[in-house]
């Protein structure tokens, strides 16, 4: 079998923020009744995390649980563990109305870090990213220039961004342009 690669194939750019491809990441779309004890138990057993509250992201060792909509989560795990994780979800949710699908190769996963990270995203997303309004652990699906994207902020001040694989080049080039030295606005400085 051919080797899997990400759409950005390890691309990295250093401007007044650093944008880097996060490499192959296991991603699973889980739909179901997020309030049910079965779904909570299944997520816990599959990736060791709780079901996040509305518009929140929970992260653990190599795993993440992201709140996508009232009936949808995006679960992250190591790329080679996706099969096992889906099997665990299916086992735990047997008899329930749910959907668990491997979307690892349909998404692109990037990290935006450095002191200008907030500004790089704020230039291309209609979201209030001031430190008071957007705090670590928050997860936001929004529009990034011409494409949909979703991101969360971690305690270290880095953003983790997911978008569709088909627009990975566009998204990377867009963030690159936004992070070009000389383009600092200084809004959050």
């Amino acid at each position, binding site marked *: 079998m051919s080797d899997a690669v990400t759409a950005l194939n390890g691309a990295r750019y250093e401007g007044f923020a650093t944008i880097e491809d996060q490499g192959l990441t296991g991603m699973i779309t889980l739909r179901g009744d997020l309030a049910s004890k079965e779904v909570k138990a299944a997520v816990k057993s599959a990736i060791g995390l709780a079901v996040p509250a509305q518009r929140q992201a929970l992260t653990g060792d190599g795993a993440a649980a992201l709140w996508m909509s009232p009936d949808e989560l995006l679960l992250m795990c190591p790329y080679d563990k996706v099969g096992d994780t889906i099997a665990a979800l299916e086992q735990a949710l047997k008899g329930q109305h749910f959907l668990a699908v491997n979307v690892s190769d349909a998404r692109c996963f990037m990290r935006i870090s450095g002191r200008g990270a907030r500004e790089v995203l704020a230039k291309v997303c*209609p979201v209030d990213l001031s430190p008071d309004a957007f705090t670590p652990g928050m997860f936001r699906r929004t529009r990034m220039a011409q494409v949909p994207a979703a991101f969360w902020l971690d305690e270290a001040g880095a953003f983790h961004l997911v978008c569709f694989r088909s627009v990975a080049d566009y998204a990377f080039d867009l963030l690159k342009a936004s992070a070009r030295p000389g383009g600092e606005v200084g809004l959050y400085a």
Partner: protein
Amino acid sequence: MLILTCPCCGVTGEETEFHQGGEAHLKRFGPGSSDDDFHTYMFAKENPKGAHFERWRHNNGCGKWFIAARDTVTLEVYGTYPAQTHEPPQHIRDAITARRPGWTWREFA
């Protein structure tokens, strides 16, 4: 520019994060209905100068549909509520009445 609050995920976002989906509170006349009913359902839309009810979708966010009441003249958003609502909730009607006493929209007032 409208600022809408999605009642499904709670995000308050600007218009470009959403997509308008036509008139709200339509009663569908499909196969088997009379030509007149179907014609009215299909083509006769409200085009008010004032309060209007529209379906919107949070297409760059949670992906859910909801209903927004807004003013076509001032662009004021009177409020948003879930798509599973068959008529405008009282607090939305009150908000419109405060601005436009005596308003009507289809069978609602």
